[in-house]
């Protein structure tokens, strides 16, 4: 009995330890490999220290990918946040229709993003896709959605928005339903208008939930691969070539393993920094919201 009690702390730490090893080991190994010129052409590589990072940071291809990744992540996270909050506000007023819509709303979340991208790729086909059929009567048919650089990026963001807006909406709806009723009752008694109440009461109190949505969506969008790869493969040209796709092409298709991993390490650093900043910001927002209530 005594032995079991003494062993309990050690046993409890084992799963966390295994998980940590499972994350740290490949990460450390990957980091180590970036210090070599390891590729299929050079299976017994030389140590090149930080040369891969130096090469990467001087390549136009890298900066193009970094720019596309940031554009995509900011665009997707911003639109999803605004739309998600708007949808949540609409659904917040309980009605039979609202309850049905709540259930319908999460359908995109139940589809694998890569499937959603393939589905949208078919729907966006000019002249045969359903989107073209719907827009043709308005004189907007024949648009080559993914054939131009701007169109391809916008289409990719739109698919991301279609898949993930429900996630933000569900989060915001949960937040709305957890807000205390008394401040709103007081505002109503004082004759405050809807817009004033939203701006001065709802939004400040809801902000921590919105921030959680922003953090999740921004982090995920920085790491996007499936949606863009299925929709455009990074084209036309390099217009949707985000960092993850570039890393995949370098490491797997072109078999420049060290160089490909360097891309993912840089991406990890960017995501880590962004996460740190946003989580700090979330802490401040939570404190402010607590003060407001």
């Amino acid at each position, binding site marked *: 009995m005594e032995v079991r009690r003494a062993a309990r702390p050690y046993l409890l*730490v084992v799963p966390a330890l295994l998980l940590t090893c499972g994350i740290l*080991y490949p990460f*450390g190994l990957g980091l180590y490999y970036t210090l070599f010129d390891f590729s299929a052409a050079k*299976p017994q590589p030389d140590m090149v220290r930080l040369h891969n990072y130096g090469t990467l940071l001087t390549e136009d291809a890298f900066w193009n990918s970094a720019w596309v990744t940031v554009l995509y992540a900011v665009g997707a996270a911003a639109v999803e946040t605004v739309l998600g909050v708007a949808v949540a506000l609409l659904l917040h007023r309980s009605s039979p229709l609202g309850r049905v819509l709540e259930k319908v709303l999460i359908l995109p979340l139940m589809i694998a993003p890569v499937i959603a991208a393939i589905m949208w790729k078919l729907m966006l086909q000019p002249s045969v896709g359903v989107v073209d059929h719907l827009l043709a009567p308005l004189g907007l048919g024949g648009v080559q959605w993914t*054939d131009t650089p701007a169109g391809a990026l916008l289409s990719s963001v739109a698919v991301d928005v279609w898949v993930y807006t429900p996630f933000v909406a569900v989060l915001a709806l949960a937040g709305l339903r957890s807000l205390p009723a008394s401040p709103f009752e007081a505002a109503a008694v004082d004759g405050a208008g809807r817009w004033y109440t939203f701006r001065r009461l709802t939004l400040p109190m809801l902000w921590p939930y919105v921030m959680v949505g922003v953090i999740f969506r921004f982090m995920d969008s920085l790491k996007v691969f499936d949606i863009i790869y299925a929709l*455009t*493969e990074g*084209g*036309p040209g390099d217009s949707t070539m985000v960092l993850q796709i570039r890393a995949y*092409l370098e490491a797997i298709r072109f078999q420049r393993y060290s160089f490909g991993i360097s891309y993912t390490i840089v991406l990890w650093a960017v995501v880590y920094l962004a996460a740190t900043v946003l989580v700090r910001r979330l802490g401040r927002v939570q404190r402010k919201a607590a003060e407001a209530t």
Partner: protein
Amino acid sequence: MDRHVHDRRRFLALTGALTASPLLSACGAGFGGGGEQGGGPAADDVTGPFDWKREKGTTVRALLNKHPYTDALIADLKSFTDRTGIEVRYDVFPEDSYFDKLTVDLSSGRASYDVFMLGAYMVWQYGPPGWLEDLGPWMRNSSATAAEWDHADFFPNLLQAGRWSLRAGAPLGRGGQYALPWGWETNVVAYNTEVFDRLGLRPAETFEELRELAGVIEEKAPRAGFDGMYGIAVRGSRSWATIHPGFMTMYARNGLRDFTVDGGRLVPAMNSPAAVAFTEDWARMVRRGGPPSWTSYTWYQCSSDLGAKKAGMLFDADTAAYFQAVKGASPASGRIAFHPGPKGPDGSLATNMWIWSLGMNARSRRKGAGWLFLQWATGKEHLRRAALDGDHIDPVRTSVGRDGAYRDKMRHLPGFLETFEAVAGQTKVQFTPQAQFFDATTSWAAALQEIYGGKDARSVLDGLADDLAPKVG
């Protein structure tokens, strides 16, 4: 209490050290699967008279791509097992993920698969790291190879395509035999006879005529009752696969090269003045008469559009049209004809080829059984059966191509046999062999997309050449 704290700290320190040890050991553990060159010594171990039953009781693992050729092989596998007593276990992956799976498996250094499908271009990627068995010693050993296998029966270009010295820029046909031809494709023009008859058109004999024809179909076909039809289906996705069929065929017929070899170094040549002019013309043809949403087009969409009467012509693999042309396969079946396509300015019908080949893992522990499988799969008997009973068309063996039953089977497709015979002798790999093939051609496809989008061809192709020069040189 103190003792517990102390123990816990020591425990965590120890487990931390244990966690770190694999990482540290990895420093000396080497880098995955490269290094060792595959070679032929295993072939020399086979002595005595040839015997199909030599490896009876063995199981061979095969990695296969989902393809009608594969279907024909799987349907006939029992005859291999009956003949040899060897079981074949196989995994079939769709083409989208097939080569990633094969690349990862080979580079890992495991011998999960003994034999696999690959293309000639993959030899350039998998050969230099030593992942492929040199099949030359096996072919030359009469104890390991049946007399009836008859390597002289293969179309010569096909066997040469899998033979390479592993040196960038060196021509094919010399060095180790890293892949055996199993099924192939020539790149030709297939067209819808119904729209051609109604509009009074004839297949193009020059590239200029082809561009014109694509535009005429796009303009006139919808008014002639072919709703939504465009001129010509060609691939356009951001992938190496966009370059190698119609584009590379027409490029080669114009006498153009992807690289030149200068003092042993490869120099990109896709930005030569003639190449720039050709690329501009190709992009113009696609803009005027190509598929809508061209930048996402793979062989599958091109083939489907021909079958669905959305495309008036297809410039791609003959198989891509064949699978739509056979009876009942598509709305256009019975109305698809074949033509060698436009000639070059000097009358050239140089055509780029794709070969589905079979290769062996240099690390396989069952090479004897794997070689028997490769012999059987590329042998006359199976390939004739696959051509007659399955859809394994474009025979790699001259004996199957001459076979009366095969010719009777293919005769109902207008122009198929004549086209095949016109281009077969001039079909070969038109690219320069080099390990960075996939990077070069994927970037080339991206450049083509940019030119299609309206960017200046000269500056885009100069940029491509500048980017590729240090990688391949």
